[in-house]
């Protein structure tokens, strides 16, 4: 039984760089930052990246995170990965988590693909002795062939994705967290990746996927959450969440247009 559970989770980012004043101007004028800024007692700017979020993901669920840039998807994934401790609220999870928030972690550009399999495995807490026996199977799944003898810095981003995904999912985690980079893989690899994910989600694992590709989310996920400026707008079946997202995007586009019109008129 694996699960993820958030209870009234909020995350505040203190921003220290630069003068708070100019930064505030900068953030307020940007479309994404509006609404989640707060000033604390010591006059420092706090970005409330996540605001009072509660939900639960259970066995075998494929969960989509939907939202515009800056809605809080990546921050939420970092909370789920256990690296950001919530400033308020509580986060509980059970199960071995494998997070693929970016491709580069545990990969070293100057080492070869094979060496990186061992290296990334170590960062996942797998001893090289145990990892070594899995190397051939992981190598095969990547379809990279002789490229695995080359330093990883010579790889294209698509090749990096193949390598990182193959390593992270070879030993099926209980909970797999993925940020949108996966969608940059080519169609053939995506199909292969989906098959693998379906395999282990069938075995009562959890997938949490953040992406801007609605087609992919609809295909891969069953339930989802719509984030807007760090708040939950909606939780429900993925189709409804995606519809709500489109509606939201249209509405904010219309608002922006109206604002531009008003500015022109003034």
């Amino acid at each position, binding site marked *: 039984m694996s699960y993820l559970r958030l209870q009234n989770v909020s995350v505040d980012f203190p921003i220290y760089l630069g003068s708070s004043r100019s930064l505030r101007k900068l953030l307020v004028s940007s479309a994404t930052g509006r609404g989640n800024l707060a000033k604390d007692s010591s006059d420092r700017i706090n970005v409330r990246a996540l605001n009072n979020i509660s939900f639960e993901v*259970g066995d075998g669920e494929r969960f989509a995170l939907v939202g515009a840039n800056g809605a809080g998807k990546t921050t939420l994934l970092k909370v789920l*990965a256990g690296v950001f401790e919530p400033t308020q609220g509580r986060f*509980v*999870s059970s199960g*071995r*988590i494998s997070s693929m928030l970016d491709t580069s972690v545990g990969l070293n550009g100057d080492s070869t693909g094979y060496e990186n399999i061992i290296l990334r495995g*170590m960062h996942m807490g797998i001893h090289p002795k145990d990892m070594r026996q899995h190397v051939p199977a992981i190598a095969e799944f990547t379809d990279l062939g002789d490229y695995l003898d080359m330093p990883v810095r010579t790889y294209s981003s698509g090749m990096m994705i193949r390598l990182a995904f193959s390593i992270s999912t070879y030993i099926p985690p209980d909970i797999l967290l993925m940020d949108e980079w996966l969608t940059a893989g080519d169609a053939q690899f995506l199909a292969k990746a989906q098959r693998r994910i379906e395999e282990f989600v069938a075995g009562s694992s959890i997938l949490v996927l953040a992406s801007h590709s609605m087609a992919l989310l609809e295909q891969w996920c069953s339930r989802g959450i719509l984030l807007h400026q760090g708040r939950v707008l909606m939780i429900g079946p993925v189709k409804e969440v995606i519809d709500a997202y489109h509606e939201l995007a249209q509405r904010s586009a219309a608002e922006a247009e109206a604002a531009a019109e008003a500015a022109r008129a003034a």
Partner: protein
Amino acid sequence: MPSTRLRLGMVAELTQLEALPEAGAGPVVDLPAQASRLDQAFADFIEGWQLNWLWVRLAHQDMRIRYRGSLIGPFWQTLTTAIMIGSMGFIYAKLFHVELQDYLPLLSSGLIFWQLVAGIITEGCGTFDAVRGIIQQVRLPLFLHAFRLVYRNLLIFAHSFVIVPVVLVIFPHPIEPLRLLELIPGAVLIAINGVAISILLGTLCARFRDVPQIVASMVQVIFFMTPIVFPPGALGSNQWLATINPLYAAIDVMRAPLLGQPTGAHSWQLLLIITVLNCVVSFLFFARFRARIAYWV
């Protein structure tokens, strides 16, 4: 301390949550943990230490990467240090009007121990910053990064240290072999201080981006105040500069037995006091801000 051993960010009692699903075989994470900050920091330390297979390998990997493709690899470290000691030795022995026979052993051992101590301090500023990619993606004990850093610096040190016996063979000194055992507690204390200072500076520098520059310039200043390129006697009436200098104490307790000289009267005491202070301050500081480090880097 609760009786159940703490796992990182994990507590045994989950009773406050209503209708909590049964915990499976996988590890449970519960944040923010209900345990006290000190307990959590201590759990971080213990778990970091238990991952020694990981940080030992990562440190070796760091070395391999640093010298990848070079012919003599990490022995570049040995070679550059040897060249520096050789050239400095001849010039400074003349400047200070001392015999090369006395000066070169003093300089070589002093400089190599200094490189170890100063290396840990300067790199300590990046303990967490340099590995932000890992910190922001994988939940690992933060002490792991400090252990890796100190161990890596000890590896580098081991490569340049081979110069010292060579110098001592060319310029023999009367050595009491038994006193060489003093090198062991000396090295252990330096390693302990190294872990503590890299945790402290790593946390501080993650939050305040000016600190690395301040630390770098302070290390530079202390280098000129510490009897490394000049004999301790040269300080004359300003001997106190060496007496209160913890970095000199660290170097002295290692260097004196190698050179067959008496260890400074207060060196061991100072080093021990500094070790306790360093560990306490660094641990309390870490315990207070541990959870924020991932946000800062």
